[in-house]
């Protein structure tokens, strides 16, 4: 029995969306998700919406009712979630719990964000907005940024395990290749190791192409109860969704390479779904930076600690490899509109498990995993999905 099932999925392209308002952008994902499920607004019991930064970046709050009104859902209960980059995975978790508890039967879940200069903010201004997820008192004054957070983690990983800049670049090369097969990706161009090495440094060891871009975009899923799912075409089941948090500030974490919250969240999800890492056919992980993908593939148990870098370089995580990682292109190439990323990962899992992923289709997958982290990996949600037999 599933904890809840996805019966509709939609998302915008990720990239620059011009002068669109957040609630308008969300509609461009939400209406396709409702159409995909074949449900009308009258069938939807609630809206669970993720948005991370608009309170700071656009002076736009209370987005739930604004988004609901835009798509004809006025009157339904709605709530907005903020948990840094794990925002819409968190919305999904709460929607799953509400469905499982019998409170709602059909929930529209999604996220929306504007991070490109279209939001009105320059790169230094948006860098400051992103840094708000770091400790206000003990990290922001020192000047830590999010490329900096993951650079600190990655350089320690390189020191402890011998991970190399070539391993990092190979993650970017792979994800750009995957992105070139995804019409919704912000970066559809293929790159080489040299493209990465010749790019400007952002926070060493990360060059520009080790980093995900600033993106605008929205994503949405229609989530229903296990029982109700049978009346839909091609439901895809959420059989596990684990969630854990880690300590802030980063310096005091027992290990900065373990991302313990991800290990805890993955353990919960595997237990709930009665699966192990060996059952995972493909995954979407939170590759905000190339090093973050390596840490994530180790944390969810695909590879032993220290083997994540070599695995990427050996092609084991490429489409056609033993466990394709980020067939969508990931945050790196598909893009990362923060609050939309968690449900966008689930849109990809849905497309793949339905066999509808086109040129980037994984070969007959039955189990997909999504790993969505927030802040200094201090929030992580891991979701396991399976095609319904």
């Amino acid at each position: 029995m599933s904890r809840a099932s996805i019966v509709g999925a939609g998302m915008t392209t990720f990239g620059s969306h011009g002068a669109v308002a957040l609630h308008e952008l969300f509609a461009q994902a939400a209406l396709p998700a409702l159409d995909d499920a074949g449900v009308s607004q009258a069938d939807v019991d609630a809206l669970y919406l993720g948005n991370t930064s608009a309170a700071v970046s656009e002076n736009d709050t209370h987005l739930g009712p604004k988004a609901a009104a835009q798509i004809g859902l006025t009157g339904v209960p709605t709530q907005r979630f903020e948990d840094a980059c794990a925002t819409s995975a968190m919305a999904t978790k709460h929607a799953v719990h509400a469905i499982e508890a019998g409170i709602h039967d059909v929930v529209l879940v999604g996220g929306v964000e504007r991070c490109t200069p279209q939001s009105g903010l320059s790169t230094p201004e948006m860098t400051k907005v992103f840094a708000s997820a770091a400790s206000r008192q003990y990290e922001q004054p020192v000047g830590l940024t999010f490329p900096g957070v993951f650079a600190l983690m990655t350089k320690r990983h390189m020191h402890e395990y011998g991970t190399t800049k070539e391993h990092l670049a190979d993650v970017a090369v792979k994800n750009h290749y995957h992105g070139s097969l995804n019409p919704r990706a912000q970066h559809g161009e293929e790159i080489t190791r040299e493209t990465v090495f010749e790019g400007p440094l952002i926070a060493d060891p990360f060059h520009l192409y080790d980093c995900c871009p600033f993106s605008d975009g929205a994503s949405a899923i229609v989530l229903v109860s296990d029982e109700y799912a049978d009346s839909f075409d091609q439901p895809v089941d959420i059989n596990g969704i684990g969630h854990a948090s880690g300590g802030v500030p980063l310096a005091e974490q027992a290990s900065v390479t373990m991302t313990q919250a991800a290990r805890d969240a993955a353990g919960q999800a595997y237990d709930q779904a009665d699966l192990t890492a060996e059952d995972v056919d493909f995954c979407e992980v939170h590759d905000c930076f190339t090093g973050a993908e390596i840490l994530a593939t180790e944390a969810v148990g695909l590879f032993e600690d220290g083997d994540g870098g070599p695995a990427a370089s050996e092609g084991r995580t490429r489409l056609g490899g033993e466990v394709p990682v980020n067939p969508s292109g990931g945050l790196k190439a598909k893009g990362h509109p923060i609050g939309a990323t968690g449900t966008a990962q689930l849109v990809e899992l849905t497309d793949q498990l339905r066999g509808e992923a086109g040129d980037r289709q994984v070969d007959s997958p039955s189990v997909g995993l999504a790993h969505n982290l927030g802040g200094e990996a201090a929030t992580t949600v891991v979701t396991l999905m399976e095609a319904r037999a």
Partner: protein
Amino acid sequence: MSSELPDGWTDDTLTHAKWAEAVRVGTLLGQRCRSCDHVVATPKSVCVDCTGRELSTIELPTTGTVYSETTIEVTPVGQDDRYQVAIVDLGETRVLGQISGDVEIDDEVSLSGHVEYEGMPGPTFSPVE
């Protein structure tokens, strides 16, 4: 009474304000749990290891070794254009600081001052020759 402190707290309980005041005069304050001896470099309301409420404010060492580091080249508005930051291992805990100079992992560093950002200080470390 609303003015009463929570169980286990005293007027000496370390807060960010007291920690910041110390950084500005060249001292790093932390906390040691009186039950389990766990040490942290930034003030908490309870021991993060055992949840004990009896925490002693302690002076942390001002020298340590670099646990990890990076040079930040794209910086937030209001910060300098380029600087190195490091997680410094002080033995029983670690703290984040900005680096004056150039360091690598395992280099020895010592507290050498502080930076100010939006009314809050951050410690600065320099390499030990």
